[in-house]
């Protein structure tokens, strides 16, 4: 029978597919919130006994990755009144194909490196690889600044997932430091986004090309 984590992770993989196909920012943000929630609750399923520190840390991760970050972006696009579709470099249909290839390649990769044996669920490593590469893809294939930042967050989610799956006894205080760094980074990016919006009245990064050589 399927491990309960795997069902969640299948949905995460599916959400990657939708993130690639979706042209609307609110959808992308919702997908990211979902991924954030799943990624942060995975430790609950993996570890047999949770220490108090572990529970506190997992809750903090859940709050930051699943609620605070997506919510702040959501309120930001509401405030900015962004309705337009995301500007792309790679078209949506091509992106969907890319995501399919990715979903095939990631399990192959995790089989090849024999990563499965380290983690509890079957799909954790392949999902993590998919998230990392998918985040990078969004960074490269979208011209919209918010979509790029969302890609970065997706990548961070993937790395966090690899971290929880692979490294056993990590110190929570260190993990918390990483989390704070990521949060601060995202907030700084959000400030930059607002400045870009103020200066250019939209978020197309193609305009940011004055500096060359």
């Amino acid at each position: 029978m399927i491990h309960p984590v795997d069902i969640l992770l299948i949905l995460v993989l599916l959400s990657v597919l939708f993130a690639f196909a979706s042209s609307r920012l609110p959808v992308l943000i919702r997908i990211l919130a979902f991924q954030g929630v799943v990624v942060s609750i995975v430790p609950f399923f993996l570890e047999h006994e949770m220490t108090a520190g572990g529970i506190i840390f997992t809750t903090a991760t859940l709050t930051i990755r699943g609620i605070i970050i997506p919510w702040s972006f959501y309120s930001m696009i509401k405030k900015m009144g962004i309705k337009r579709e995301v500007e792309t470099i790679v078209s949506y249909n091509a992106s969907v194909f890319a995501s399919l290839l990715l979903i095939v390649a990631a399990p192959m990769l995790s089989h090849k490196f024999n990563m499965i044996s380290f983690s509890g669920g079957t799909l954790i490593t392949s999902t993590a690889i998919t998230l990392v590469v998918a985040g990078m893809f969004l960074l490269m294939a979208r011209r919209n600044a918010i979509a790029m930042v969302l890609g970065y967050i997706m990548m961070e989610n993937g790395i966090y997932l690899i971290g929880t799956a692979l490294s056993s006894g990590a110190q929570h205080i260190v993990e918390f430091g990483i989390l704070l760094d990521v949060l601060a980074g995202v907030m700084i990016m959000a400030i930059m986004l607002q400045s870009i919006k103020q200066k250019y009245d939209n978020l197309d990064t193609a305009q940011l090309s004055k500096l060359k050589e």
Partner: protein
Amino acid sequence: MIESIILWILAICLSPFYAAVILKVKAFFGGKKGPPLLIHYFTLIKLMQKGSVYSNSTTFIFKMGPIASLSAALMALLFLPIAGRSPVLSFNGDVIFVLYVLGLGRFFTIAAAMDTASPFEGMGAAREAFFPIICEATMFMILILFFQLTGELTFAAYFTGIQTSGLWRVAGAPMLFVVMAFFIILLTENSRVPVDDPATHLELTMIHEVMVLDHSGPDFGLIELGAFIKLLFYSTFVARLICPIHAAHPFVNFVIFCAALSGVYVAIGVTESVMARFRMDRVSHFVLTSFALAFFATVITLEFVK
């Protein structure tokens, strides 16, 4: 065998009735009373009593179109396990045969449409030829999945008896994606909203209906009947997948199947009521989603079956 043939005839007879269920659901959503459930029988009888008009510019291909498409649909139905009973005909690899029999029917519809030399019909034919290509990719992806799960290439192996629930047991959650993919194929192949709107009156935006504008009387009746059967054909897949229950008594079994089938038709009706037709360039996106889902399900399942 006798039972299978009876079921086959029953399915043909019931297909217009089920098509009317969609109309009823749409009427309900529109707050209207809607046509009677037997409306399609009346229409078919009316059409059969009329005479046909043929344009001077058409050839025998135009007359062949409706007959070929109907016989293709009937033929396909022969291989379909209805209500979980074994089909009339079955051999290893029949899934591919059936897909191409349906393709043959489509070919003749398209050829007949091109034969009229009407620009509208040519346009519809081009669309009719384009979207099923993606559907075919999806179908094959699903077949690969089913083949991996059962090791056989017959519809009988997938949809008879307890086989269907077996698919669910092995594959689990990814089967949901297969159901979704099938549903999208159903909508596309049968020209339903949001891919195509059968009720629209603007030829420019049509796909299927525009191709049969020049057919009249009995010819049109045959095309309509063929379309009903095709819809039933695809709905059966979905119905069996969402309701894989297999009862011992054939009659109970049939009732359960009919109920599941009504569920599918109601779902189509609801989809048509709540969704608007897609812009033509978004349709390929939509159909591609089905491929993505099927592909995804296949990859995930292979991951587990290994």
